[in-house]
């Protein structure tokens, strides 16, 4: 038994402070991303979700340039970008897609400039690579409270706007008829998503941020009957994938070819992708496929009650 355990889990896994921080950060990010992700997938805003994490370079490099706290830079940039997207975006999905693309292109262009200007005092390549790939193992415990606070804030806002947001995501016309301010909600949601995505991508990299936002949620929505259940399933999938990923990455320290460990993001993303493939077998009762029938019924119930 002991041999099996030490074969599966390299010795020192539970006593290492680095691993503990990675587990905590991974859990926070996975839970918040999964909850925000369910709405992101229902609203078909995966592109915006990914764009936000790509654009977090902007806040980081910009605040470095003018010498303010990077955290402030991220939050400010997220608000500005989600506001711009909302202003440019027309209601139809294709218009929104183009608006996201335009904002992404412009923001990346500006951050190319910022990175170039930053490079006069520091190595550019380093910054670009860190932001793209990040690492769960580079966490300091000092940042855990801030992450918890911001994650909690996002989840609370999401909880407050849960019902009207759900209604306006599924049937904007019905929501408008109910006197719900659809565009304000849409901006609020984009801001919550933007802030949480920017934070996670700066902590763990763009790849993991997008994967944890979209992957667990889209898998869960394929077999869950209601959004609340989908959120629970997505949280579990995200948590399992990130913890297993951390475990394997820790184990891989002595693996070939370099003997310095495989990246965590690789393992986590592979697990998430496998979950997604597996979920297609359970798709028959999916929320998305029956969306028009069942959710309309759900929301009608909400409306009448």
């Amino acid at each position, binding site marked *: 038994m002991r041999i099996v355990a030490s074969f599966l889990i390299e010795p020192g896994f539970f006593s290492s402070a680095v691993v503990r921080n990675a587990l905590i950060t991974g859990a926070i990010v996975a839970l918040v991303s999964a909850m925000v992700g369910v709405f992101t*997938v229902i609203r*078909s805003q*995966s*592109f915006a979700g*990914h*764009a936000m994490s790509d654009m977090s370079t902007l806040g980081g490099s910009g605040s470095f340039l003018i010498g303010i706290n990077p955290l402030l830079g991220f939050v400010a940039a997220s608000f500005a970008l989600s506001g711009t997207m909302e202003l*440019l975006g*027309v209601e*139809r*999905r*294709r*218009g929104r*897609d*183009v608006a*996201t*693309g*335009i*904002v*992404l*292109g*412009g*923001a*990346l*262009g*500006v951050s*190319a*400039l910022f*990175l*170039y200007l930053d490079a006069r005092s520091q190595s*550019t*390549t*380093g910054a*670009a*690579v860190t932001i*793209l*790939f990040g690492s769960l193992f580079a966490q300091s415990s000092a940042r855990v409270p801030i992450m918890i606070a911001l994650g909690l804030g996002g989840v609370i806002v999401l909880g407050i706007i849960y019902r009207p947001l759900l209604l306006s995501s599924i049937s904007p016309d019905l929501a408008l008829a109910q006197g719900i301010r659809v565009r304000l909600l849409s901006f609020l949601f984009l801001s919550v998503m933007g802030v949480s995505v920017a934070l996670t991508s700066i902590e763990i990299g*763009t*790849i993991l941020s*997008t*994967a944890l936002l*979209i*992957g667990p*949620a*889209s898998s869960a929505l*394929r077999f869950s009957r209601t959004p609340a259940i989908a959120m629970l399933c997505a949280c579990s999938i995200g948590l399992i994938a990130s913890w297993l990923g951390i475990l394997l990455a820790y184990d891989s320290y002595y693996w070939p070819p*370099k003997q*310095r*460990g*495989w*990246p965590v*993001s*690789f393992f*986590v*993303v*592979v697990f*998430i*992708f496998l979950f*997604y493939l597996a979920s*297609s077998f359970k*798709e028959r009762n999916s929320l998305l496929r029956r969306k028009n029938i069942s959710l309309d019924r759900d929301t009608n119930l909400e409306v009448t009650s």
Partner: protein
Amino acid sequence: MFSREMINTWEVATIVAIVAGIVGFFVVLRGASFVAHAVPNASFAGAAGATLIGLNTIFGLGVFALASALGIGWLSKRGRSDAVTALILTLMLAIGALFLSWSSEYASQVYSLLFGEVLGVASNDVGITTILGAVAVIGIMVFYRPLLLSSVVPDIAQSKRINIFRVEIIFLLIVALVSTMAVPVVGTLLMFTLMVGPPASARSFADSPRVVIIISVTIALIIVWLSVIISYATDWPIGFYVGTLGVVSFLMGRIWSHARSGRGIE
């Protein structure tokens, strides 16, 4: 500005602008900006893999671009295409991260693959870019009608016995081709911006598809040429100018259509 190395830059920039203007028209029409962003970004993991085993970068780029395009097309049959695109993108990037962790020298190329180094194009790159670009444009010309029909009125396309799934795959393959051609010379950011900005603004100036394509190519050419000139003069990264000018052209298109019809484009 017109020295020997700069001639290559001018040629590549011109080719990329023409191809992006044409292919981008369909990107915007089909609401496929995410795909146009994801495929070039994903393909760049292939570049990391190719350097690892000592192959030509363009081979790795091509393989990964194709794989991600086909993956997106195939999985979209059964899932939401935007979520699928995000998943394939992260999967490819994660594989790229794995390759990067195995090699030790690649990191310095990441910046140039992302943001582009137009001012240092080698002359044998020009040949490959020209050939791949020509193939992409010929592909668009051959499949022009089915592409147009299935983008605008899928129902009519279906009643005319056009296989929508096959057209989608062909479109994705063209995007993959364009990515392979453009990423090593101008970077993912530049190619993406050129495929979205000019066509999106061109749609505000005209209605007929052919005219829109011509305007879109013209805008793309103006943006690229201006960017090369200013970037050469100021030494700031070209991605900044292309990105900003792309936004400016889009806003001008919005203002134009707003002024003409008294309301925004819908």
